[in-house]
């Protein structure tokens, strides 16, 4: 503890605290046990007068560390924020008096609970340093867009409109992407009645005339190094010329590849030239130049066309896509209109299983198709056969419940989108190290496949989630990828149509701009937005074990030549998973450290083995478990007075050393409460909860070596709504201790 720390402890008597607790005793605990320099009680601490009292101590007494012993850290945050002062909160209201009955019998243990929370708050704040921010924080206020399709172009134009410089890297010879291959697009404005101009030319023109936007054609990223604010990117042209440029943030708009329709021979693709994909029909429509669309096989004018929806999609069959590509229903309607608008006598039949035209306008467009005479048949196509150039479409009519067939001049397959998401870093080819030539070839294949070629320790691209898309997995925070400062947009993220891609890309541009601004100020991005701390480590203690670099959910940590961790502060999301991973306790944050938690658990008063007063340590995720515990208090649900709860940033930040320390200092039970892990994870740091569960699976050895029962340590997945469940779990632990007895490790 540095000498210039002056700690003020403030004890509130409001909200019943004064009536329920002996606050003089609390003040004495703060002063004598916890050694606060200034200790004051107040009737109503969050009032103007109470705040003035604290501010006065800050201004006149030099108090620079404040322990507020009042309500939960989630309450009255506006009032209890002081400039340039570290603050801790002792939760006496939601965490003590609201979870304990107001009875004489309960009085003693309730007071002990409060005493401990005062000790904990003061010992925590002693080890908090107001983060000074990263002195090396800087930012390049230009951004890189990878991919020159509609998503990429939109992101570029929108970011430029907000005043930022943008570079677009496009691997082909022209801007436009798949959008440029379209004849027309589905309308996005009322009356949603007819196909509309694609807007691609206008976008290209807007880019060409924009001084803020630089375009690199025939180029790819051969190396991406650095971090938000200072990504150093090698842009290499087809001819091999490489240019290194620095960017503040990256938008990955690498788009999609059309599903390979050759995998669908049963639908006639590859057997008959008159079976085409939706994208190929666009070319036929462009070739027709407003006139009659002719089929590729023999140039005959198309008089009847069947649209086969969900071709190789929404299917469990091997080689098919399990998902829906979202746009194909409205695309089929649009394409049927290409025919109907030129000649209403052409038969157009859309054979579908579920027609999906959601949202504003989708249904209007569907109705417009019906009005124009497009036929819609609910059915499942089993085969498309060539019948002398014409096509025999065999399907089960699901309405008439019978197998049937129809003849068509042309068949259009609605094949899906496959994300251009680069290398699947979780399933990378392992180099065998024996055959150098084979390894070099494998490395080259991977390099060519990669979109970003990140130098990150955890792999060259963003992690894939479901079905090869780079989506974020979060519902509430769809842009948050696992690589800070790199945002995906458009169909690389999830299948989407043009209207959505435009909206999505505009949002992604905002996120990239935000990352640039945050990096410049050394601030964390979501979910600990604004946090100025960053991890630091004691180099001399580090054993180069690499756990932190492997376990960081955001790939923030690399290794230097000597295999020491390199933290890349602006990539860091401040979850503390590295701190939890470190076996030698050398990683910490200024405002969250081995000590800021460790000292809290050590400063809990530990009654002896014969007191019948066990102690249960609860380490609770601050986002879900802790609010659930708070709300249990607000609902006045009771739980054991023997629990001592410490909020943690993420269960991933829990270091086994805390568990060992707690067991050694006599805790009778330890409970870890984190978020759901696994496929549908709710952990806000993605892997934190999973890592904690994994680490805790090894705690049995520690327990065995201490001859302690395995029931003493539990790890739970808790949702924020588990308001009834959290007190029950705590009470159950208290019962368990009653059954197996107290820990013998009380000193």
């Amino acid at each position, binding site marked *: 503890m540095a000498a210039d720390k002056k700690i003020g402890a403030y004890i509130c008597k409001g909200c019943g605290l004064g009536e329920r607790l002996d606050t003089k005793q609390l003040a004495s605990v703060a002063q004598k046990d916890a050694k606060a320099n200034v200790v004051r009680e107040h009737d109503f601490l969050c009032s103007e007068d109470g705040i003035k009292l604290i501010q006065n101590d800050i201004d006149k007494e030099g108090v620079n560390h404040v322990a507020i012993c009042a309500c939960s850290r989630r309450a009255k945050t506006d009032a209890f924020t002081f400039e340039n002062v570290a603050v801790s909160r002792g939760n006496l209201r939601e965490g003590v008096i609201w979870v304990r009955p107001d009875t004489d019998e309960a009085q003693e243990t309730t007071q002990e609970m409060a005493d401990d929370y005062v000790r904990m708050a003061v010992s925590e704040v002693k080890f908090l340093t107001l983060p000074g921010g990263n002195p090396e924080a800087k930012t390049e206020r230009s951004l890189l867009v990878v991919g020159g399709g509609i998503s990429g172009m939109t992101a570029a134009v929108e970011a430029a409109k907000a005043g930022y410089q943008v570079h677009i890297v496009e691997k082909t010879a022209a801007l436009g992407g798949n959008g440029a291959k379209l004849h027309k697009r589905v309308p996005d404005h009322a009356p949603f009645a007819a196909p509309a101009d694609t807007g691609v030319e206008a976008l290209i023109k807007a880019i060409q005339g924009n001084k803020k936007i630089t375009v690199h054609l025939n180029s790819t990223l051969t190396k991406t190094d650095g971090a938000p604010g200072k990504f150093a990117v090698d842009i290499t042209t087809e001819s091999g010329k490489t240019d290194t440029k620095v960017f503040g943030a990256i938008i990955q708009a690498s788009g999609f590849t059309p599903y390979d329709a050759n995998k669908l021979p049963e639908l006639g693709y590859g057997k008959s030239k008159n079976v085409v994909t939706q994208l190929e029909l666009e070319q036929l429509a462009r070739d027709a130049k407003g006139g009659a669309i002719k089929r590729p096989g023999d140039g005959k004018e198309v008089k009847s066309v069947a649209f086969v929806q969900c071709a190789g999609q929404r299917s469990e069959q091997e080689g098919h896509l399990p998902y829906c*590509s979202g746009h194909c229903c409205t695309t089929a309607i649009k394409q049927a209109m290409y025919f109907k608008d030129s000649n209403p006598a052409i038969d157009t039949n859309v054979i579908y299983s579920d027609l999906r035209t959601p949202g504003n306008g989708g249904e209007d467009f569907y109705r417009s198709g019906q009005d124009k005479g497009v036929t819609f048949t609910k059915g499942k196509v089993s085969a498309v056969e060539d019948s002398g150039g014409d096509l025999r479409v065999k399907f089960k009519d699901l309405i008439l419940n019978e197998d049937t067939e129809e003849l068509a001049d042309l068949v259009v397959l609605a094949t899906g989108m496959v994300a251009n998401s680069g290398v699947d870093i979780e399933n990378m080819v392992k180099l065998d190290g024996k055959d150098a030539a084979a390894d070099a070839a494998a490395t080259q294949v991977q390099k060519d496949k990669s979109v970003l070629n990140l130098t990150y320790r955890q792999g060259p691209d963003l992690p894939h989630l479901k079905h090869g898309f780079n989506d974020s997995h979060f519902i509430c925070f769809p842009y948050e990828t696992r690589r800070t400062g790199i945002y995906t947009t458009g169909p690389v993220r999830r299948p989407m149509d043009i209207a959505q891609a435009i909206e999505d890309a505009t949002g992604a541009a905002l996120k990239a701009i935000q990352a640039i601004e945050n990096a410049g100020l050394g601030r964390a991005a979501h979910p600990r937005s604004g946090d100025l701390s960053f991890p630091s480590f004691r180099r001399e203690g580090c054993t180069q074990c690499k756990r932190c670099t492997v376990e960081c959910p955001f790939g923030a940590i690399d290794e230097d030549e000597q295999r020491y961790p390199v933290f890349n502060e602006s990539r860091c999301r401040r979850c503390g998973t590295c701190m939890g991973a470190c076996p030698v306790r050398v990683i910490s944050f200024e405002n969250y450290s081995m000590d800021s938690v460790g000292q809290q658990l050590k400063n809990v008063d530990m009654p002896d083995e014969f007191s019948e007063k066990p102690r249960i340590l609860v380490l609770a995720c601050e986002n879900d478990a802790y609010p659930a515990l708070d709300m249990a208090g607000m609902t006045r649900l009771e739980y054991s007075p023997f629990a001592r709860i410490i909020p943690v940033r993420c269960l991933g930040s829990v270091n086994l050393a805390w568990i060992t320390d707690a067991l050694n200092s006599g805790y009778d039970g330890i409970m870890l409460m984190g978020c*759901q892990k696994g496929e549908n994870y709710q952990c806000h740091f993605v892997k934190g909860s999973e890592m904690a569960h994994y680490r805790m699976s090894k705690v049995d050895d520690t327990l065995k070596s201490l001859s302690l029962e395995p029931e003493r340590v539990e790890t739970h997945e808790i949702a924020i709504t588990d308001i009834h469940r959290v007190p029950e779990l705590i009470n159950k632990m208290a019962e368990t201790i009653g059954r197996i007895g107290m820990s013998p490790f009380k000193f």
Partner: protein
Amino acid sequence: MGDVIATNQSILVIGGGISGITAAIEAAECGKQVILIEKEPAIGGRISQLYKYFPKMCHPTCGLEINLRRIKANKNIRVMTLTEVTDVAGKAGDYTVTVKVAPRYVNDNCTACGECNKAVTGEFDDAFHLGMKKRKGAYLPYAMAYPQRYVIDPAIIGSDDASKAKAACKFNAVDLEMKAQSVTLKAGAIIWATGWKPYDAEKIQPYGYKRYPNVVTNMELERMMDPFGPTGGKILRPSDGQEARNIAFIQCAGSRDKNHLKHCSRICCMASLKQTTYLREKYGDEGKATVYYIDIRAIDRIDDFYQKVQADPNVSFVKSKVANITQNKENSNVILNGVNTEGYQRYSNEHDLVVLATGMEPSIPANAFPMKITINENGFIEQDEANGAIFAAGCSADALDVNRAVQSATASALRAIQVVNRVAGMEG
């Protein structure tokens, strides 16, 4: 949360649901000054009333907690509740917005200790629980309400309860003299995020909502699943309070229908699929769900959720627009009548409860919008140059699920930033 001074470089966000909250935070975290106004006493909007989100089956309050923390930590955001827009004047880069702030009758002193609530006795329909539960005249809107301050229902002003609430407060937080205020705010750009309301199910006459007790809406089912909700987390039949185990879901109740909402509301298919899993959660193999649908619109990547539900032997699907609902007088069961269009079979199916998947009606005053703006026939705000710097976000722009509403809100935040950066001369 800060005390943002409104200037023509600040962004005004109207509506404090998921879209408005997102737009406000995303803009503020870019360093912009934002004022977020909400007409209810707390922000959170519709999502705060949902039990779970599809497709992850996670809890909306989990994301809300993160967002509230971001707001609390950000000095660039000022939140004004009980506030509604009465007038908008000016042009892009220079708007003057008049808002009316209704009295809360509780000031900043409030510590949310709840003593006022204990003191009062009168009870009123709780709008948060869609009127299915009562609350007192001094109340916290919901457990996670932000601002975390109690509210005095205007209905008790002048009554004994009002004086009791005032007397119970040790902190002088109850101020019965509080009056409605008119406040003028400046803004460079406006994000319109007033969300949606469930389509009024009573208007779908053949389905007997309000006539038959065991006809409920999907939002009402969400409230029933809340452990602190009107039924304590149980799916109960309003007729007799018995648990409903055989439940019908009617899709497109009011949507895709020229007589009602002519658009597809997008979320209702996934919402019903999600709700079929509530039965499994409650009853295991003992629950039975039947979904009456036209098309199941489990769009794009989340189609696998539909596939998972289809694989559940206790969930069946009937392709049919239900013709009407009658009631079994003996047991108040609902009887759904119609034709299964897959094979043209007539049916008359009895269920314990029917859930109407009511659609999304945009909450936009189409005829009384305070400014000239392009609103289409479906009631959504269209993107249009003529709208100046008023940008729709979320369900003001389209029928969207949460994920897409957040995308839309993030996009609208950038559009607003483009304008205020232009005002600040930053774009040059």
